[in-house]
């Protein structure tokens, strides 16, 4: 038996050795994202969020043809007209959710599963829903293969949230929305936060941060992904 394991390890070794080590590139990416963090607001991103960005292997979430760009700070196509968000935007969205290790988070729009993986490193459990069957299947398999046991995926309509696991500490909606689905606001805990990116694919324009007060009152904040003040600059 032991001989078999050794043999298997020997066979696997060349393959493992062949795979490039992206650790340095990931660190560079984190540095770049850290530099840009101030553009969205006055606060830098939390160290936990940046550390997670340095751990999650983005190259495992992109199609083979895009692997060489996996650690560039840019969105990439993942097929089916969908994209994996720009790492800066992922960091910003994650940071805005103020994740805690016991949190239960709902994600609407699984995509490649990268955002879910980032969240899974920081919170208790992530429930994620996807409306495109092929993406739901591949992201589910990928997350399982990479050992993200605290992520549950399903194919379905995210508009009504996921009632069985509600309420949620935070919700992230990455699918395009003409309005904030009222059922999602209901499934958000008092004191909870919801983030929705707004804009065309490859061009996130702003992030909508929705906060539900302890009294149930809802306010939104538009986080221009850039600090673009003053609007009336000098000549």
């Amino acid at each position: 038996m032991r001989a078999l394991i050794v043999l298997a390890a020997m066979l696997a070794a060349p393959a493992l050795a062949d795979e490039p080590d992206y650790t340095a590139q990931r660190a560079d990416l984190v540095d770049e994202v850290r530099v840009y963090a101030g553009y969205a607001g006055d606060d830098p991103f939390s160290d936990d969020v940046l550390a997670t960005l340095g751990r999650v292997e983005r190259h495992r979430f992109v199609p083979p043809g895009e692997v060489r760009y996996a650690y560039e700070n840019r969105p990439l196509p993942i097929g089916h007209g969908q994209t994996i968000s720009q790492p800066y935007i992922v960091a910003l969205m994650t940071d805005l959710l103020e994740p805690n290790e016991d949190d239960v988070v709902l994600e609407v729009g699984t995509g490649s599963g990268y955002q879910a993986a980032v969240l899974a490193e920081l919170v208790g459990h992530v429930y994620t829903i996807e409306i495109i069957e092929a993406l739901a299947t591949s992201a589910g398999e990928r997350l399982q293969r990479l050992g993200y046991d605290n992520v549950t995926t399903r194919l379905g309509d995210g508009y009504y949230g996921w009632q069985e696991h509600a309420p949620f500490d935070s919700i992230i909606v990455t699918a395009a929305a003409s309005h904030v689905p009222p059922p999602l606001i209901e499934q958000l805990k008092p004191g909870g936060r919801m983030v929705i990116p707004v804009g065309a694919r490859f061009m996130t324009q702003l992030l909508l941060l929705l906060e539900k007060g302890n009294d149930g009152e809802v306010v939104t904040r538009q986080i221009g992904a850039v600090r673009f003040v003053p609007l009336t600059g000098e000549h």
Partner: protein
Amino acid sequence: MRRLLIATLLVSAAAIGYEILLMRVLSIVQWHHFAYMIISLALLGYGASGTFIAVLRNRLEPRFELAFAGSALFFSISMVVCFILAQRVPFNALEIVWDSGQFLNLAVLYLAFFVPFFFAACCIGLAFTCRGSECSRIYFFDLFGAGLGAILVIALLFAVSPQTALVLLAVLPLLGSILVASMLAVRLPLGAAQFAWLLLLAVGVPQAHLELRISEYKGLAQALEVVDSRILNERSSPLGLITVVDSPFVPVRHAPGLSFGTRHIPPPQLAVFTDADGMSAITRFDGQPESVAYLGDMTAALPFALLEESAVLVLGAGAGADVLMALYHDASRIDAVELNPQMSELVADTYADFAGHIYDDRRVTVVTGEARSFVARRGGAYDVIQIGLLDSFGASGAGVQALNESYIYTVEALIDYIDNLAPGGFLAITRWIKMPPRDSVKLIATAIESLRQSGVSEPGRRIAMIRSWNTSTLLVKRGDITPTEIDRIKAFSRSRSFDTAWLPGMRAEDANRYNRLPRPYIHEAAVALLDDNAGDFLDRYKFYVEPATDDRPYFFHFFRWRTLPEVMTLRKAGGAGLIEWGYLVLVATLLQAAALGLGLILVPLALAKQAWPAGAGRNFGFYFLLLGLAFLFVEMAFIQKFTLFLGNPLYSVAVVLSGFLLFAGLGSAASERLARRLPWPAVSPVTVAVAAIVLLALLYVAVLPVVFDKSIGLTDTARIVLSLALIAPLAFFMGMPFPLGMKRVVRLAPGFVPWAWGINGFASVVSAVLATLLAIEFGFSVVIVIATSLYAVAAWDEAAIRSG
């Protein structure tokens, strides 16, 4: 000769038909602004043909018929083959900011569409070069064919799909090829190729190859990725490809600006895409108002909260959302204007059961027409004039509409709307909110300017604006907004978690309560715009938010050069969405066209400079360059001027473009007679023609607004006849300078003929792009004035050639 002239007409008709068709198809599979760039660059094929003929003139001239017939055949074949190949280029316009490889894909697309235009232009250029003595007749058939081609393709697009139209258009140059080949003594190999291609077109090019491959990032493609979604209906016309999609597993719920405090969820809807994007929705209505109660919780519902009973005018009815909203609020009468009859038909007929027969309601009257034209002609006293969201957020957000003229949101438009309100009535305009704000600020600026021009001394008393997180609704009242109405607006907004961006007498701290911006930008903008120093604010704002006018109808133009470096440096910090693409694409198109065009003209010039007498090249080259620029300046500016008058962009393209080309063709045919009968031998016929053009064009700039104002109430037919009557004399004289100049070239420097053709083709491409850029910056009247100057310089140049 007759066969050659008819062949010229057929090739020319197919070329312009193909150009219009490509614009349509590329707007479906890609986005309008990139379609514009790709086609503009492809049209450089016209300039390149001149270069090609000039270099190979000695070989082509003895084989003229064969070269013409071969080019026409290649044109026909490449129309279809290049179309198929281009569909396979994986160009992703949205990724261009991130992936430089997309520029290569773009270049391949230029090249693919360059080929057919090159062969088409070779035919015409060869005719001019080898049959120069007949140049005015050739030019007549060239222009006449182009005019017919424009009408033909618009008619075809009503009757058949774009793919079928492509195959039918490809038959025209093939017929031209066959006609000219019949003049050859030996025609076997060419004849066999013609026959084989004809057979293939007749049997049918396999549909799978012709199928449109829509960008996977467009709304339609994305909707079809959803489990169980399917296309229910598809209709095509020159106004757009309409696709109806049902998605039972994940129902469509389109309700922009819906309050997040609402307890009402929209019922299932059918998604309606125009050109595979710009989604709107047909809402299921079972006749029970409570089933669509969400319609009371949108910013656009504000005017109904202020009126007990209302006669409503909906401008841009689309898939019926605003009509349903008015019905939900018990409007007493609803007139709904929609440009695209196929869209209205979906709600009125095909999906009438689903939509609850809202267009059969006795209170509802649906009119097919354009908003401005309807308002100017019908008149009326409406309590509410509602202009909803006519475009998608995606298109609005990326600034890709910057090139689109829109007469809906101009100062003059708002004056017209307000004139059609009953005393105490409200104009309500809803727009998407962008960050940083653009549309909303420009809309307030436009409303203030309109009221000021109407003699209102305190416009701030007549304006209100509320906003959700993604939409704003502007109200402009005919009369001052009363304290009771102010209270109602506050109550409506508070109960739905909307913010008041502007209300007479409001406090700044109330402007940013529920949907918090980093600062209360829109409120601050409104305060600044109502101040005496509004001009200073408009100058300093980082986006261009000065009001659009009928002469500069670019509401969606927000680009400012000085903001670009800042936006580009923020690209990696999420700033990519701030780039205003439309304007940049236009500038990029101009630069590429100018660089490539100059290369096409100057490089071969060095190779073959001995082909004409010294000095002739410079003088003639300048002359044809000026003509190419000026002709399109005038043509494009007047298409815009007449668009508003004719009230329908299709009429305007068909009538104005065809009218221009047909009458210019007649002018060309008459040019020799003018030259012969001119009573003053010392005066050049070009000078006479140019004098007429300058006088008429400047006269039109001055009097057309008055003529249009007085005659806007005429019937469609009468307005078309009047338009043609106005265009006829101007176009007639504009058709003369080219053939008159060409005649002289044939006599003095025959080797220069293909160059003249090439330079004119190059100038036309640059001119079309430059005219749009100048119109955005200075307005169409300025474009016309510049064009008259160019014509005048051309006449002076020609006089110099005569005397020299």
